[in-house]
């Protein structure tokens, strides 16, 4: 086992069904499913039902949905599923910042129980004690993990949690009649939503850029602070994987200026049990349960941004929150300064349930071990990528990183003309996914890798072998890389119509109107 295995790049070809668009499968008269019929007595008493509708509210023409038999619908979507590479299939370490870890299958079994799937949020509390218990307990777990005092599970993702943080800061200053505080500071290596979702609340955004060490600059922060400062929303480690050791200076300065500090811990995978929001004096933080806490990403949701606050801000949380009175769990809708709601009902319960199961499976030691191994894996991959010709890991030369690294293909591009986009397309030919990074591309020709704790050393080696193969091709035959993919589902896309209002087609009916008449 400890011997090095020969790691080969796979002779991969993704499924390629050449599957039509669902509307092209339309055969009049076919049925995908029958709906329950009405009982004869009801039919006799009530009639057709439709005539109860006012004439002007009746639909004249049936919606032009396709008519497709059941097995064909199944086959269609199964084939489309095979046109995807989920984390379950590939070595999904190429989507840095997103923590594509293993989502345990047992959790899916639990989520599908009728006692989780078929419960309504307005059932009487006495009938949903299990669900409320899970929400409450994950709250208490996250209090331990963060050091903060209470969590809400309403935000439907990290961006919604940022919006909720911005809303809380806004509501706080409004309740104190401090109307002049309208600026929030963030950093360029924090998620775009730290700026964007905050601006939705009317805040002016100040973005700090990195210094030569790749870290936000304390002096720049000092210049940005004023009596207009409402807060600082920041990631740490940022997308570079470099931990900012002076983070408590940042929070101290912001507090002295009268603002609040919100910690974007969408991804906290490298520091579970190592360092917490409390130690760095943050007032708020949030964890994406679909990242660090294993809930699957579902092609882009549903996820959940679990938002925690210090007790001073508890009364501003969105409602409802779940509480425990020593005997039973109950719903509390009465927080005096609540921002109201950021989503319907309690949030994405399945994500909370999966986080519960994941934490219960690992315990405190296991969480810390997950963090340790995620960081070990990252630094192992970092060493291997540094050895690749044309690749670079800007900033913090010679130092270790936490859970991810933002790399650059700048040198590869200069020497071969092969760009990050090209490498991405060629990696698809070997069954791998690679991602650039968030805009703007401060690191030129960026790519972001985050190995998490889920993949074995052999798998990491296999991914690196894939990168090495593409690099080798780039130097020997750059055109080969530039024309990729060859073994993926489709070939190079023509993006020209996607930005042209006369040509873009966001639906099949628009496509038919614009391109088929």
């Amino acid at each position, binding site marked *: 086992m400890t011997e090095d295995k020969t790691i080969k790049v796979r002779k991969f070809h993704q499924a390629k069904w050449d599957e039509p668009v669902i509307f092209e499968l339309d055969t009049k008269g076919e049925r995908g499913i029958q709906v329950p019929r009405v009982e004869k007595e009801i039919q006799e008493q009530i009639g057709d039902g439709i005539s109860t509708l006012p004439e002007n509210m009746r639909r004249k023409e049936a919606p032009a949905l396709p008519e497709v038999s059941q097995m064909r619908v199944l086959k269609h*979507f199964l084939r489309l599923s095979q046109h995807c590479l*989920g984390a379950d299939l590939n070595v999904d370490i190429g989507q840095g910042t997103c923590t594509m870890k293993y989502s345990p299958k047992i959790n899916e079994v639990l989520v599908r129980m009728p006692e989780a799937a078929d419960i309504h949020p307005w059932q009487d509390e006495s009938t949903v004690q299990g669900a409320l218990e*899970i929400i409450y307990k994950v709250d208490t777990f996250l209090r331990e993990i963060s050091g903060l005092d209470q969590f809400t599970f309403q935000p439907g993702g990290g961006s919604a949690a940022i919006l909720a943080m911005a809303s809380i800061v806004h509501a706080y200053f409004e309740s104190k009649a401090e109307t002049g505080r309208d600026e929030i500071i963030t950093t360029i290596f924090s998620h775009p939503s730290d*700026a964007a979702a905050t601006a939705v609340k009317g805040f002016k955004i100040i973005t700090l850029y990195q210094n030569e060490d790749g870290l936000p600059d304390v002096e720049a922060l000092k210049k940005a602070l004023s009596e207009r400062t409402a807060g600082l929303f920041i990631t740490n480690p940022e997308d570079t994987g470099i931990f900012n050791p002076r983070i408590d200076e940042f929070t101290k300065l912001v507090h002295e200026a009268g603002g609040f500090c919100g910690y974007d811990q969408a991804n906290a995978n490298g520091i579970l049990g190592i360092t*917490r929001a409390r130690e760095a004096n943050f007032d708020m933080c949030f964890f994406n349960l679909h990242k660090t806490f294993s809930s699957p990403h579902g092609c882009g949701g*549903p996820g959940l941004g679990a938002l925690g606050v210090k007790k001073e801000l508890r009364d501003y949380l969105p409602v409802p929150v779940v509480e425990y009175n020593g005997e039973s769990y109950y719903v509390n809708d009465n927080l005096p300064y609540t921002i109201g709601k950021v989503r319907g009902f309690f949030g994405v319960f399945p994500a909370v349930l999966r986080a519960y199961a994941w934490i219960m499976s690992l315990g405190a030691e296991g969480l810390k071990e997950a963090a340790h191994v995620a960081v*070990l894996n990252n630094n192992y991959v970092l060493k291997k990528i540094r050895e690749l010709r044309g690749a670079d890991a800007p900033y913090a030369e010679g130092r*270790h990183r936490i859970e991810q690294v933002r790399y650059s293909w700048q040198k590869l591009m200069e020497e071969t003309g092969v760009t990050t986009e090209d490498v991405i397309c060629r990696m698809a030919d070997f069954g791998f996914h690679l991602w650039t990074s968030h805009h703007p591309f401060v690191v030129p020709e960026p790519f972001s890798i985050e190995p998490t704790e889920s993949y074995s050393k052999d798998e990491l080696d296999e991914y690196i072998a894939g990168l090495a193969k593409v690099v080798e091709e780039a130097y020997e035959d750059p055109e080969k890389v530039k024309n990729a993919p060859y073994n993926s589902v489709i070939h190079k896309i023509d993006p020209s119509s996607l930005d042209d209002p006369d040509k873009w087609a966001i639906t099949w009916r628009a496509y038919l109107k614009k391109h088929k008449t």
Partner: protein
Amino acid sequence: MNEKNKSVHPYIPNSVPEVKAKMMKDIGITDIEELYEDIPEHLRFKGKMNLPEALTSEYALKRHVEGVLLKNLSCKDHISFLGGGCWQHYVPAICDEINQRSEFLTAYAGEPYEDHGRFQSLFEYESLMAELLDMDVVNVPTYDWCQAAGTAIRMAGRITGRNEILVADTVSPERLAVIRNYCHPVMNIRLVKHCPQTGIMDLEDMETKTSSKTAGVYFENPSFLGFIEHQGELISEIAHKSGAISIVGVDPVSLGVIRPPSQYGVDIVCGDIQCLGVHMFFGGGLGGFIASRDEEKYVMEYPSRLFGITKTAVEGEYGFGDVAYERTSFAEREEGKEFVGTHAALWGITAAVYLSLMGPHGMKELNTVILQKSHYLMKQLSVISGVRAPYFKSSHFKEFVVDFNETGKTVKDINTYLRSKKIFGGKSLRSVFPELGESALYCVTEIHTKENLDSLIQAIREIVDSAGILDLREEGSTDD
């Protein structure tokens, strides 16, 4: 800690001591702690997280979590009449089959090549919804209807350059709470009154409140309280006359037989897709949609991903990609339109499966049977002395308010009794619409059999006819 004696957790392969040692040697460290060199001592967490003992065996974990979940009573084993934005419809087996596929469930943000299936299925979702809504643009799902309504309103604000929105005062209180927070402090919300007898919008009040500051009007159809707003054309006309945008939140299930809002002058339509093949999940099954005409001034204001169809280098091959990506916060941070991130894509794929299975005939038949069953229940409940359904003298689809004011019983007492009969009664409206007194919002769908409806009718008759209060109140009951 003694690495040798520790069993390796199945989720963490490189915990194997030999593997770990080799990797550590490779990167030149002797202790994992060295990797955290940048985290200063004073920022370290010195304690131990107080978490329960790990249940490392899958069996132990399953037993434990099942035990907690089994404290819930599900709508599978009870007859539920709860709705109000989270609805119990039948979920076809294939919807669950597809959304449990590893490829969809565990994919995230791949490229249009290796994740082509994600792009195509969400493009198909947009396209199927577009037929139901009779509109040419539909977004990749946002969080839920609440968010969709909030964004539709902010879109109207940007399109018109105005900052006031009129909202029907009968909209869902959940939605209104989200809208209020999402709009504050950029846009002002003014509520428009309704006719107390029918529930429909008071057009006079709307006209009075409409001005050159009005960005748009938002109402729901069928409304939260179940009645159908039949004045859509007039409302849109009043809005348009003053340069405002007409926005409607709609239950998409209803569009098999009910006229889609685009056909009565509405500019932006939004709503929820949970009802299209997704389980309720305690409210976790929600997903929001936004739709509009294919006009640049509308399309460029969407914050969401919009997947479009295009060509590839190979003749006849479909490719898909982001339309007008530069609008988004992914491209432009705070200069983008609102924000985009992880929302509810898996439920969009599920809704695509659902609509493909249902087809035009399935949707029409579904609507017909819902109309018949809900009207049967309203009719039979009204026979009971003191009970009136619907409360509002209007047409209804699947939800309606049941008025218990004349029974002398509270909704709380009625629901407590119903629970003893394994029935979850309708949502009490007392705290959110106090003017309705002891009334409850009931929801009937295709899953309710005549037998289910008759047992509800029988149980309500029993509690209403009983002298005094049946002493069946439980500890901790929460209906208000």
